[in-house]
């Protein structure tokens, strides 16, 4: 199959109106908000050295916060605000998706706008400012008729920089629930779909380039007093915004929204759930690539309707429990606690995706290591790798305590690369996931947790409070419960990592249903 005849190009293209439209809307809104806040601030600060310094300092610090972290920080903040607003004014708002993305991106856009506005205004010849005063202008007239017009070219350069930054950073708003061109990139990275990754990067780059060039046209128009160019640039931007609004009004979000976290198994399961719902006559959409904490709160708030989580994750993160209970007991308690928040634990899918310590089978056999307990004496000479969150999770603390583990080095890695690193001997042990297909592929072995330091991680289906009484929905999803065993899920995950046309989440979900639906 040649590069361009790959069916995933067509699939990517089909998502474009939705992803691009959302991307443009969130970027334009954020930029507009950034301008509305930054411009008056810069103007007010221009004659006050201390305020100016404080503002620029603040904006610079914001700039040093990585985009992903900034976006992620706004979600809990808004969640708390929404709860307050609900308590005080009786009306909450959705802290999911659009709002936190707009606020974080607006904050991100402030530095170049502030800096260039202050620089531009400061660069106006004092003789010209005095002349404005001398001909009888009030300070406001001087600002609007003389200083701002003369500073405008420099200000426009700042606005261009801000626009490019915002459009680029907006790809990171996918994990907090805002659909964007980042959906291609996050989904593509997780499912080894390089066509998606490439498509997303190209689309974002082209959008940034187009907006930059249109703003450059306006800037040149201002510089050379050419109304034509300003008009042409303005019309270009307006057209872009209008074009992205049209498909949106046509496809207002409707039906059941299925959520997915940021890894391949989740993409496959959400595709499976959506397929089953459509087969039962529902209209179903999806919100994919959501952060682990974001997705639960989104369900609780009703921003999504259904998703698959793991019992141990909720036990540790939502219930804040560090103790470990037997499977059935943990599930029962989880179900009861979730019911307090009106969240329905519909049931288990049949497999577990737990953290597990994994190493190459041959090496384990050679060293006589069968369980984690056998590892303790070798750990001091071994290196270990895990995903970005593992070392700060209670499971790791539990493991260390139960087995007295202390490795020579600990590294954090993109999960996709971890298994290969273990197979090649680059690291000795990894904290893998029990349902990962790569365990079999690389001939790795899961070390037994005889002391039960790792809680059970049954895959469970959760329903949003507003869907609790929806019998038709329950009926459509019930066939999935208890139907997927660990071997099947591993194979599905391996297929999803295949990197070809048959590895799209939809295709793998169809394969999965073919396999389990007949049971």
């Amino acid at each position, binding site marked *: 199959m040649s590069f361009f005849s790959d069916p995933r190009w067509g699939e990517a293209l089909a998502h474009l109106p939705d992803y691009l439209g959302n991307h443009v809307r969130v970027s334009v809104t954020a930029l507009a908000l950034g301008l509305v806040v930054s411009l008056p601030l810069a103007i007010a600060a221009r004659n006050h050295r201390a305020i100016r310094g404080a503002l620029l300092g603040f904006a610079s610090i914001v700039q040093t916060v990585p985009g992903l972290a900034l976006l992620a920080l706004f979600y809990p903040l808004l969640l708390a605000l929404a709860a307050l607003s609900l308590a005080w004014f009786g009306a909450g708002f959705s802290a999911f998706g659009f709002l936190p993305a707009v606020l974080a991106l607006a904050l991100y856009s402030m530095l170049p706008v502030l800096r260039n506005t202050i620089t531009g205004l400061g660069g106006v010849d004092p003789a010209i400012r*005095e002349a404005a005063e*001398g001909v009888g202008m009030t300070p406001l*007239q001087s600002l609007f008729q003389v200083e701002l017009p*003369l500073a405008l070219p420099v200000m426009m350069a700042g606005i261009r920089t801000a626009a490019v930054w915002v459009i680029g950073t907006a790809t990171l708003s996918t994990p907090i629930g805002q659909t964007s061109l980042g959906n291609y990139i996050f989904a593509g990275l997780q499912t080894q779909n390089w066509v998606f990754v490439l498509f997303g990067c190209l689309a974002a780059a082209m959008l940034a380039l187009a907006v930059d060039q249109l703003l450059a046209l306006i800037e040149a128009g201002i510089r050379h*007093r050419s109304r034509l160019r300003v008009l042409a640039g303005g019309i270009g931007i307006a057209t872009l915004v209008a074009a992205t609004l049209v498909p949106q009004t046509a496809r207002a979000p409707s039906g059941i929204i299925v959520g997915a976290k940021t890894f391949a198994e989740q993409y496959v399961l959400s595709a499976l759930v959506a397929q089953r719902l459509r087969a039962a006559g529902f209209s179903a959409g999806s919100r994919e690539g959501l952060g682990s904490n974001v997705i639960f709160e989104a369900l609780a708030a009703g921003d999504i309707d259904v998703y698959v989580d793991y019992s141990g994750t909720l036990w540790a993160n939502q219930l804040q429990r560090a103790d470990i209970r037997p499977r059935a007991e943990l599930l029962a308690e989880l179900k009861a606690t979730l019911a307090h928040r009106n969240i329905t634990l519909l049931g288990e899918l049949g497999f577990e995706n737990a953290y597990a310590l994994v190493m190459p089978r041959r090496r384990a056999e050679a060293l006589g290591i069968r369980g984690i307990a056998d590892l303790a004496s070798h750990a001091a000479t071994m290196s270990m790798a895990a995903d970005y969150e593992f070392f700060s999770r209670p499971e790791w603390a539990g493991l260390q305590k139960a087995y007295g583990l202390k490795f020579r080095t600990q590294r954090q890695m993109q999960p996709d690369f971890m298994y290969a690193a273990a197979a090649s001997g680059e690291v000795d042990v990894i904290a893998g996931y029990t349902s990962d297909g790569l365990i079999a592929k690389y001939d790795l072995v899961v070390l037994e947790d005889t002391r039960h330091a790792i809680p059970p991680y049954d895959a469970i289906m959760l329903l949003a409070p507003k869907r609790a009484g929806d019998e038709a929905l329950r009926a459509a999803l019930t066939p999935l419960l208890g139907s997927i065993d660990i071997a099947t899920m591993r194979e599905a995950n391996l297929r999803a990592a295949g990197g070809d046309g048959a590895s799209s989440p939809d295709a793998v979900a169809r394969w999965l249903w073919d396999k389990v639906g007949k049971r």
Partner: protein
Amino acid sequence: MQISPLIAFAHVGKSFGGGRGTQAVRAVDDVSLEIAEGEFLVIVGGSGSGKTTLLRLANRLIDADQGQITVEGDDVRSVDPIQLRRRIGYVFQSGGLFPHFSVSGNIGITPKLIGTPPDEIAARVDELLDLVRLDRALYRDRFPHELSGGQRQRVGVARALAARPRIVLMDEPFGALDPLTRDALGDDYRELHRKLGLTTVMITHDMTEALLLADRIAVMRGGKLLAQGTPAQLSRSEDPYVGELLRTPRRQAERLNALLPRGSAA
């Protein structure tokens, strides 16, 4: 009959700086000076002697530290500075044209600020372009960077006159011009001054220009007003600096006469 002066400085002082370890500069030091209605006063003095500062005090671009300034009988501190500036024409030392306004936009700015209807402004702009001898059709829509230095200074003069002020303050309006243009522009302005019944205070470095244009000359040095009076009165001054200033043009004229025999060239 005692006519009250149109502009009066009484014991006016103004210092700059003095903060952060730098020594304060007494830019204007105890200056008392009166300018009668219809008078053409020229201020001369070396660089940094306080001429521009004195002029800026008159329309409150800066405020005095000491003394009192009255314009048309009112203490400038008691009037709205914006209204004051709209009543006084000011030609800036550096030209001070707005680079993003056309010639007509620059000239018509003060009338526009006081709410003159646009058609009246347009007519006024054309009238002023005639007055400063710039071709209406050719220059109206040009931008400052499309003008020569002399043309810019003419526009600066036209702008100062646009709102029909009674008082015009000019800070080296004809500096940086070739001698012929300078001479012609000076004569032109002197004629306008007479025709429109203006009261003019003009700063120049050029003693010859001062002597040719002024009703009265004020000489400044180190922030102080050294002498004031008609050219004839000044010529009787006993101050050596004033004497030196006045002798310079005459000495130059004599040397020129010797160098260029009568009747040649001209």
